[in-house]
């Protein structure tokens, strides 16, 4: 992984085991632990408002799904334009398992994710034969087909009325309010991110990267291309399913309308802005994409207080300004920072590591 390339003096890796640890340096592990510890106390800090908790929960479930997409796009090199459909499938599946079969929410979330995995692998079957832009178009088709399925399958999604999802409960102890649900999302995030990092240093993870970098060589080296391409779809849908299920039990209501192509594009944007092929990038990209509309809203709010505030086009067109900002961010990032925020983050780290003698 690219994070390993910049090493401080005196850090020598003498074994493969040391080179493929989850955290490249002791301090990166310590920082991760400190970060999680800070997040654990975050809901009780005085300056953290309810709204910030909402945003953090949003970042949580979206970043899990984005990480799944990054495994598919960033690590295996397959383009998927249908991630939102899997996210939605996970949401409906968890709600359905809980409502119809009476499975407790604690178990219905992973079960829904497994179900989504199966669907993802079926949708991923074309990936065994086609790649690149043809695959992008095939996944685009599956996005529309699944969206159509959501609108039609009333037994599963409740049709246009949507479906209700029960609040999260653990051994009879119900979770109330955002501040408690925050811990559920945080726990899932930590587990899913550790799982992903672990996956990527296993044989399967290396096979994914080999398929991305040079699929012919990978096949020559004995990597079963079809298996790993479809497996990658499966893993990515599993993550999307977990994210979607967390979303469902957070809002406690799932509507058939939210999982359109725009959300798929937003997931792709998170992955690209964060940095393709970087676990950290999925998180950074999600934070960027969740905060971008907030920043736009804030900017419009400030504009309202100035003389520009009388222009109705600016105040009324907020939805479109937000959407345009997403599109513009994608284009600008691809032109000026194609390796994403994770790359920028590494550069900043390298600068301070080697300061003041940076060469």
């Amino acid at each position: 992984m690219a994070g390993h390339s910049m090493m401080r003096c005196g850090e020598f890796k003498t074994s493969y085991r040391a080179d493929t640890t989850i955290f490249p340096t002791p301090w990166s592990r310590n920082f991760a632990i400190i970060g999680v510890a800070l997040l654990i106390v975050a809901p009780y800090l005085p300056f953290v408002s309810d709204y910030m908790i909402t945003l953090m929960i949003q970042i949580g479930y979206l970043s899990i799904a984005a990480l799944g997409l990054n495994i598919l796009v960033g690590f295996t090199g397959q383009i998927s334009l249908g991630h939102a459909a899997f996210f939605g499938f996970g949401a409906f599946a968890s709600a359905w398992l809980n409502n119809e079969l009476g499975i407790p929410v604690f178990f219905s979330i992973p079960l829904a994710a497994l179900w989504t995995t199966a669907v993802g692998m079926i949708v991923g079957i074309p990936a065994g034969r086609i790649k690149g832009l043809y695959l992008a178009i095939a996944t685009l088709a599956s996005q529309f087909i699944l969206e159509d399925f959501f609108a039609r399958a009333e037994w599963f999604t409740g049709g246009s009325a949507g479906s209700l999802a029960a609040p999260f409960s653990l051994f009879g102890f119900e979770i109330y309010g955002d501040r408690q649900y925050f811990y559920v999302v945080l726990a899932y995030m930590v587990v899913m991110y550790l799982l992903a990092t672990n996956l990527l240093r296993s044989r399967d993870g290396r096979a994914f990267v080999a398929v991305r970098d040079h699929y012919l060589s990978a096949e020559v080296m004995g990597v079963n291309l079809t298996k790993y391409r479809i497996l990658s779809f499966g893993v990515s849908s599993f993550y999307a399913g977990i994210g979607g299920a967390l979303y469902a039990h957070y809002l406690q209501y799932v509507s058939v309308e939210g999982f359109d192509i725009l959300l798929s594009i937003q997931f792709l944007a998170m992955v690209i802005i964060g940095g393709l092929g970087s676990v950290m990038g999925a998180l950074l990209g999600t934070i960027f994409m969740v905060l971008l509309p907030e920043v736009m809203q804030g900017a419009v709010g400030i504009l309202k207080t100035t003389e520009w505030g009388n222009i109705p086009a600016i105040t009324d067109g907020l939805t479109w300004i937000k959407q345009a900002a997403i599109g513009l961010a994608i284009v600008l990032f691809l032109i000026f920072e194609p390796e994403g925020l994770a790359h920028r983050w590494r550069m900043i780290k390298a600068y301070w590591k080697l300061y003041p003698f940076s060469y």
Partner: protein
Amino acid sequence: MNFELLLQLVINGLIIGTLYGVVGMCFVLIYKASQIVNFAQGEFLLIGAWVCWWILTQFHLPFYAGFLLTLLFMMVFGILLQVLVLRPMIGEPIISVIMVTIGLSIFFQAIMNWMFGVFVQPFPPIFETKSVDIFGLNVQPAYLMSLVISIIIMGGFAWFFKYSRMGLAMRATAFNQQVAQSLGISIKQVFAASWAISAMVSALAGVVVGMVNGVSSALSFFGIKVFPAVILGGLDSVIGAVVGGLIIGVLENVAEYVDGQWLNVGNLYTIAPFYVLVIILMIRPYGLFGTEEIERV
């Protein structure tokens, strides 16, 4: 069985199909020349239609003047887009190029919605008569015009690629960029020209659709509907785009007929082309007329 309805639907399908064919040709043109899959093709229709509508309603110009101005605008727009956004992307991996066009597509969609609103705006009427009677079927004159224009464009494309200097340069570039360059063809010009032509012809299609259905953000869905057509025909075949467009146009209308008569599932009109798309990709990803990619180790 209601044969009259079926016949009407097939005729509608053929007319819509020629439009898909035209937009598909524009799509294939860009793909052939610069190897870029343009997910923002539908937005070209949208922008063209809105600009034409705006010129006609704001300045009350005669239709042909407004239309020529629109084409001029789209030409500049296409060239600018290629030079500013897509030229830096040359040599980037395919996912980046796809994502740039997707980014452009949602950007322009948002900007158009912001500027012109989300409601359908009717075009100022151009024809006096409401409908024309052909073989006992009612056909809107705008549809007839679209059919005529589409056929003219297709003929124009055939002539352009066969005889004109720029068209030959484009084919040479599509065949082999390095050889074309060594023969004195400016690749930059070819790329810019392909985007300009594609934007202009798409805008034309957008104006035609706008005349029939009114201008609204729904126009950009044409850009997605065109995927089944071009994949069916073959991504790098101009004739394939036309054939694919006709087939998809008829298919979705027949799907609607089957749906309305027997199945009653609803929405099959929109979704049937995507099922076809997946099936084609599984069986014959290079389409009916496309070149098969053969990989050797």
